């Protein structure tokens, strides 16, 4: 060991590796959450919260900013005044930093930004990895150092930190989002001694000395004129010229200290290679593994790993390539539409061309150079693809500007490769686990990796794939173990251990396609060992027999129930894995599992440890090896993914994604501009609820509260004529409607049990109790499986019943009547019990057929717009919300733009109606222009007029008539909704929200306030309340929640409401209707219970907490209506009562508050007192305001 300090082997992911070094080598860290880089900031914050010091013995200051732009500004300021400063980001976050990056580089400021490289949203958002973000930052002047593996991430974090201090050129330290940022690997952990040895304190002091100070004043950031700007820009050249040498020097120094030698460009392969692939990032690991495999078989090939991409050193690059190279393929993990080629390709072309012209290349003749794209948005990049590229290079005319890994049947860019080519060595254990998020499979596997990685000499790798649902999410864990380092940066295709933790998956996926001959197959089965075989689908039986699998089964849920583990089968299945995989001797494995349990759960209390111990002990006695018959006997076939009735696109494209076969979809089958059909969640019957609600029609009072609160729109009701019941299924329930307006008609409340998530909010909201059995309500949870068949038929029949006419004389401001309005937002992937979606659904019930929705990035854009299926839908007339997501930060402006279009086009349409009055007919024209559209009847009448207008214009070929025809629908009132979470409205998008409200335009801003950044894992926002614990507020948030409503009220002309459906549904409905009716800007702040509150969201607790939030005065309900001011009344009306209960009655039911009591009771007491004072003061202020007219 070079510096004499013992280094630990740790089993960690790339983000952890960065945080370890970045926190230790900086003084100031400015952060903002964005996937997949958020954990780096979170870990840095946690380290400082735990008083971990950097290598100079002081605790770095970590500050969360309101946006990445803000983080970059703070970083720039801290650097300008001489602190060692860093940040972490990705994707759009990096793009928001670019303006500051030009400044930081232009001022030759030493810093490292650590980037978990991710796709930049184009036709769609993607959270996954590629280089499109960092490639957009190429021109900023930042150096770019690319790491390929978790070990390199740790090493390069330090090398770049050392190099930036010497070179004064700022660095982007880049690694692939998810594939490296989230891949868990066994690596050697650098010590503080290593870091001290690498970082030259004189350079640190020089950096500090360059900081601006009033004690030696100078100015920086001047404005320059044409006379000097250009020359001044050229002053930095020497620094860029020196940087590659400085980086190599740092790499050499690192090799001396740590023992791992890196180069600016590392060549791997045959010394006399003729074909060479050049690439950077995690794909280089796969390429290296493949090259080693093929060269061992005599192939003359090689690959070049680009480490330092900027400044691009021609000298080092040319020196690294074999002179024998005849063909080069440059692989870029990005796309630049319209460019002559992708960036790395162009750099290689330029460098070799220039070198060849100068005679500085090793080549006797100019090699053929082709470029290709791979791996966009974490698309798999496998040895088969690498070989495919090498094969392409052997062709007389290889494809240039090719793609690999997809099927491009439109412009035919894709190259062929042998999908069965497999180089996974036999001495590596390859294990795959299918589980649900809620069953703890991933957590257990992370534990197993640590057990093996840190407890044995074996190397270990783990990578986890999640679907994009929040309720009932499916996970696939890919684990590799072996006696030598693992370089396989791709998913396992052939496993020697397959575990299926959910029996239902057997019917959905071809899981055993992944099993190799003789593999072990572990199944969590609800059936007894001697019955399980008979319940397997035929394809599974056949695979077990034909592949000669060793088949084991356990009823893990039974064991979990017996041992108090609930639905978490993690420990049980982990024990089974160790018992039968042979990775470790069984006794040793059990000991290690128990040690890991103690370590993981010990701080949560002994009871939790004991519960897990019991689960380990019980697991083994319930595990059975199943005798495999010689013949498959099952008649159970895999059901169709979607029914025949589904639209063609759903059957051919969406269904493939649902089957996990989206990689097979060719370019030609996908929409060209990111526009997808609405209403596709209805075709994906997920059946994730163990229990679903059942209507008791005799008890029901038809109040509609269950329909209103259902987050997934699975409870619906209709009032209809009795004649419609003809042909109803036998079990279809119908009773007399209890409305005076609907006398003699029938009423049905129907549940879509296959779409239900089992959250029980409906039961919680039901006000009825059975007089003979008070625990029973008018809607009750029952096991879902027995209901499935009958309710599928009932649901289908129900959907065909006629919808209520919206023009009937029914008051839709009434909660009871709203249940009859068709929701146009259904079956989203939101969490079970989600507190946001009931509001979204309500808006679609009221205005969905004429709504335009701008949705900020976050939970609502993910459950609202993540493929394969999306919940925004349409009615029988084909009308429904027009929905789009632009960005996180610009949503209010995006929505305003939609309003501007509507206003402008409506104005033009009206002008055309006036102009074409004679053609249209005076009566119709006048009626169109003077229509009262303040209610549903008025809107319906206008739609009829527009239909007439279209008929009239249909035969008119005049230019103006055709224009009017194209704009005629704009004569019907539209409703613009700008939706998003608090991270958007309070923080990153606040400037836009403020400006759009100030604009006076008729938009409706709906803030789904969960009080944290929910989608990225619960980071604090300015909506986070005082005393709550959140990421970046681990010690309890010391400041009060921003009063967004009060800020908006200060304009005087903005309608503002604060609502909480669970506490007062009538007020919620009233506020939403008033806001929409107000001809000006509206802001609605909606209390949204969330998983990040630490409540039993999936058991209806959100409803109870909402009530308490209002009753304790924490969340006063109010409506500020500027129209009331004009009537001489106070515009602010408080809709909730003066608080009578103390705040603690509400907050201490939630883990976000209780965690502080458990970690710092004194601080919790202090913050509780402050929070209670704040509630009192807040109420007092509002009470006074409500008296001012």
């Amino acid at each position, binding site marked *: 060991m070079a510096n004499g300090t013992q280094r630990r082997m740790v089993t960690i992911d790339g983000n952890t590796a960065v945080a370890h070094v970045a926190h230790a080598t900086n003084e100031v860290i400015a952060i903002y959450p964005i996937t997949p880089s958020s954990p780096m900031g979170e870990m840095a914050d*946690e380290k400082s919260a735990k008083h971990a010091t950097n290598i100079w013995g002081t605790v770095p200051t970590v500050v969360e900013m309101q946006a990445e732009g803000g983080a970059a500004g703070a970083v720039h300021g801290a650097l300008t005044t001489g602190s060692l400063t860093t940040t972490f980001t990705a994707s759009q976050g990096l793009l928001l930093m670019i303006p500051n990056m030009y400044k930081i580089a232009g001022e030759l400021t030493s810093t490292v930004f650590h980037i978990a490289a991710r796709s930049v949203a184009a036709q769609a958002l993607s959270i996954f990895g590629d280089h499109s973000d960092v490639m957009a930052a190429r021109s900023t002047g930042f150096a770019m150092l690319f790491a390929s593996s978790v070990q390199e991430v740790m090493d390069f974090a330090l090398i770049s930190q050392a190099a930036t201090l010497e070179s004064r050129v700022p660095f982007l330290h880049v690694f692939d989002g998810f594939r490296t940022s989230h891949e868990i690997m066994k690596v050697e952990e650098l010590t503080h001694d290593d870091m001290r040895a690498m970082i030259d304190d004189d350079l640190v002091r020089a950096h500090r000395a360059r900081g601006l100070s009033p004690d030696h004043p100078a100015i920086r950031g001047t404005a320059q004129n044409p006379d000097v700007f250009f020359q001044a820009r050229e002053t930095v050249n020497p620094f860029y010229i020196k940087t590659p040498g400085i980086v190599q020097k740092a790499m050499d120094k690192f090799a001396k200290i740590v023992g791992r030698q890196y180069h600016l460009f590392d060549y791997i392969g045959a010394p006399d290679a003729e074909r060479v692939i050049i690439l950077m990032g995690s794909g280089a690991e796969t390429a290296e593994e493949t090259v080693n495999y093929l060269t061992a078989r005599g192939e003359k090939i090689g690959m070049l790993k680009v480490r330092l991409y900027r400044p691009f050193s021609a000298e080092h690059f040319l020196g690294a390539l074999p002179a024998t190279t005849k063909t080069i393929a440059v692989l870029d993990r990005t796309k630049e539409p319209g460019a002559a080629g992708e960036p790395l390709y162009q750099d290689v072309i330029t460098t070799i061309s220039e070198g060849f012209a100068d005679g500085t290349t090793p080549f006797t003749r100019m090699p053929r150079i082709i470029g290709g794209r791979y791996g966009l948005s974490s698309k798999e990049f496998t040895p088969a693809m690498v070989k495919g590229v090498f094969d392409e290079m052997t062709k007389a005319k290889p494809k240039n500007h090719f793609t690999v890994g997809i099927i491009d049947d439109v412009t035919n860019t894709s190259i062929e490769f042998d999908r069965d080519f497999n180089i996974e060595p036999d001495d590596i254990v390859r294990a795959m686990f299918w589980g649900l998020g809620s069953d703890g499979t991933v957590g257990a596997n992370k534990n197993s990796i640590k057990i093996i990685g840190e407890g044995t000499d074996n190397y270990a790798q783990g990578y986890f794939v999640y679907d994009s649902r*929040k309720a009932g999410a499916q996970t696939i864990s890919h684990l590799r173990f072996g006696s030598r380092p693992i370089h396989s940066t791709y998913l396992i295709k052939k496993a020697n251990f397959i575990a299926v933790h959910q029996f239902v998956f057997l019917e959905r996926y071809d899981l055993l396609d992944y099993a190799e001959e003789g593999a072990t197959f572990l199944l969590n089965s609800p059936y007894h060992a001697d019955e399980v075989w008979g319940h397997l689908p035929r394809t599974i039986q056949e695979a077990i027999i034909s592949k000669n699998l060793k088949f084991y089964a356990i009823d893990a849920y039974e064991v979990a129930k017996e041992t108090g583990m609930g639905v978490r089968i993690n420990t049980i299945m982990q024990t089974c894995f160790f018992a039968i995989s042979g990775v470790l001797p069984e006794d040793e494995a059990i000991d290690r599992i128990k040690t890991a349990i103690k370590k993981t759960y010990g701080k949560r209390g002994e009871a939790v440890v004991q*519960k897990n111990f019991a689960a380990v002990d019980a697991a083994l006695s319930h595990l059975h090896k199943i005798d495999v018959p010689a013949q498959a006997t099952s008649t159970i076939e895999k059901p169709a993914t979607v029914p025949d009735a589904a639209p063609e696109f759903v059957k051919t494209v969406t269904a493939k994604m649902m089957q996990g076969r989206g990689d097979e979809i060719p370019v030609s089958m996908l929409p060209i501009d990111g526009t997808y059909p609405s209403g596709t969640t209805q075709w994906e019957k997920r059946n994730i609820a163990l229990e679903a609600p059942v209507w008791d029609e005799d008890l029901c009072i038809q109040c509609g509260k269950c329909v209103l609160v259902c987050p997934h729109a699975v409870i619906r009701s209709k009032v209809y004529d009795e004649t419609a019941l003809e042909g109803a299924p036998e079990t279809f329930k119908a009773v007399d409607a209890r409305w005076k307006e609907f006398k003699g008609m029938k009423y049905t409340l129907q549940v879509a049990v296959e779409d239900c998530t089992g959250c029980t909010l409906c039961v919680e909201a039901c006000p009825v109790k059975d007089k003979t059995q008070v625990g029973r309500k008018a809607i009750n949870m029952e096991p879902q499986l027995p209901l499935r068949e009958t309710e599928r038929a009932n649901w289908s029949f129900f959907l065909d019943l006629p919808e209520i006419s919206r023009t009937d004389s029914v008051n839709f401001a009434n909660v009871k009547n709203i249940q009859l309005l068709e929701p146009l937002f259904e079956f989203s992937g939101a969490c079970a019990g989600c507190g946001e979606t009931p509001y979204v659904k309500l808006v679609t019930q009221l205005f969905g057929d004429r709504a335009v929705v701008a949705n900020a990035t976050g939970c609502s854009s993910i459950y609202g717009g993540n493929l394969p299926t999306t919940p925004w839908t349409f009615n029988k007339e084909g009308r429904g919300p027009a929905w789009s997501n632009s960005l996180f930060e610009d949503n209010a402006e995006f929505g305003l733009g939609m309003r501007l279009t509507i206003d402008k086009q409506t104005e033009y349409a009206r002008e055309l109606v006036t102009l074409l009055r004679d053609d249209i007919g005076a009566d119709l024209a006048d009626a169109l222009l003077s229509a009262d559209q303040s209610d549903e009847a008025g809107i319906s009448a206008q739609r009829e007029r527009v239909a007439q207008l279209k008929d009239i214009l249909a035969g008119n070929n005049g230019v103006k008539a055709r224009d009017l025809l194209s704009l005629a629908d704009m004569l019907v009132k539209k409703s613009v909704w700008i939706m998003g979470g608090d991270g958007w409205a309070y923080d990153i998008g606040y400037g836009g929200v403020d400006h759009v409200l100030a604009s006076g335009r008729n938009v409706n801003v709906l803030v789904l306030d969960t009080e944290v950044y929910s989608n990225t894992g619960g980071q604090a926002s300015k909506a986070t309340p005082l005393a709550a614990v959140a990421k970046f507020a681990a010690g309890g948030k010391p400041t009060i929640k921003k009063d967004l409503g009060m800020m908006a009220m200060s304009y005087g002309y903005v309608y503002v409401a604060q609502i909480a459906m669970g506490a007062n549904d009538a007020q919620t409905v009233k506020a939403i209707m008033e806001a929409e009716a107000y001809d000006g800007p509206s802001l609605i702040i909606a209390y949204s219970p969330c998983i990040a509150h630490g409540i039993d969201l999936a058991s209806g607790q959100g409803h109870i907490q909402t009530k308490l939030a209002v009753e304790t005065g924490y969340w006063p309900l109010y409506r500020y209506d500027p129209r009331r001011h004009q009537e001489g009344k106070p515009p602010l009306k408080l809709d909730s009562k003066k608080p009578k209960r103390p705040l603690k009655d509400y907050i201490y039911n939630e883990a*976000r508050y209780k965690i502080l009591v458990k970690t710092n009771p004194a601080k919790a007491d202090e913050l509780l007192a402050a929070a209670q004072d704040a509630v009192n003061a807040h109420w007092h202020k509002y009470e006074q305001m409500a008296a001012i007219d």
Partner: protein
Amino acid sequence: MDLTTTYMGMTLKNPIVPSASPLSKDIATVKQMEDAGAAAIVLYSLFEEQISGESHELDHFLSFGADTFSEASSYFPDMTDYNMGPDEYLNHIRRIKESVDIPVIGSLNGVSTGGWIEYAKNIADAGADGLELNIYYIPTSTSLAGTDVEKMYLDVVRDVTASVSIPVAVKLNPYFSSTAHMSAQLAAAGADALVLFNRFYQPDFDLEALEVAPRVELSHSHEMLLPLRWVAILSPQIDVDFAITTGVHTHYDVLKGVMAGAKVTMMASELLANGVGRISQILQSLVDWMELYEYESIVQMQGSMNQRNVAEPAAFERANYMKVLQSYR
């Protein structure tokens, strides 16, 4: 006037001991009780359910939603440590021991012989002078025999007394088939004192909400008659200290308890309703009464009216029942 008494080997300055109640959650209030004359203090109870329940709850919320979604592998920051289980309670004992000079008795409330008994040792280690074991169990299962329930109690007492060197009192309920036999067995199992009786808070119905609602009703003096009878019966038979804990509100109640054979009388409802200052008032009234009736010490009257010492021992038995009925007529 000599008010001193002994309880579980401790010499106490008088027989008034505040029993387990929320009053002892605040150190300043404990100090006030000492200043008012409390001879010792029984702290509020550490509940078995609290220890395991909080752990399970924290585990549930930290695990729930974790590792289910690619953008959020967790929803809460990873904290170094949590004050789980008895930590808070033990710290409280330490702080109280630093603040007062009177003996401090910890209280454990639970039913199983599981890992939570470890906390008895923790309570002793934290400096408690004694431990009151409150075994609060409602045997609702029709398949659970009385002997099984009794065994459960005895196992707990044996386990706890074996694990600590401080004296252990057992607070028991009045619903055993044979209270006397059970009391003797508890003493044999190692109990240093028996505290009669635990008050079971009975659930009430909320007729508006049609819900079962927990209800806390403070005790009244007449409720003391049950423990009074049993202390009078048991104290001459079983060689442990007795404490009376239900319905002690006035100096008369204290006098009666002591005469029945209790070494101490414990009160909570009176102090909750009328303030801890009541201790000094009751003590004064006690002294006044003793002076009026020319008693010299508490010890003098201790057990003076137990079943062995009264003129009519049958008054505590079935014969008394008949007599009462006749007198009513």
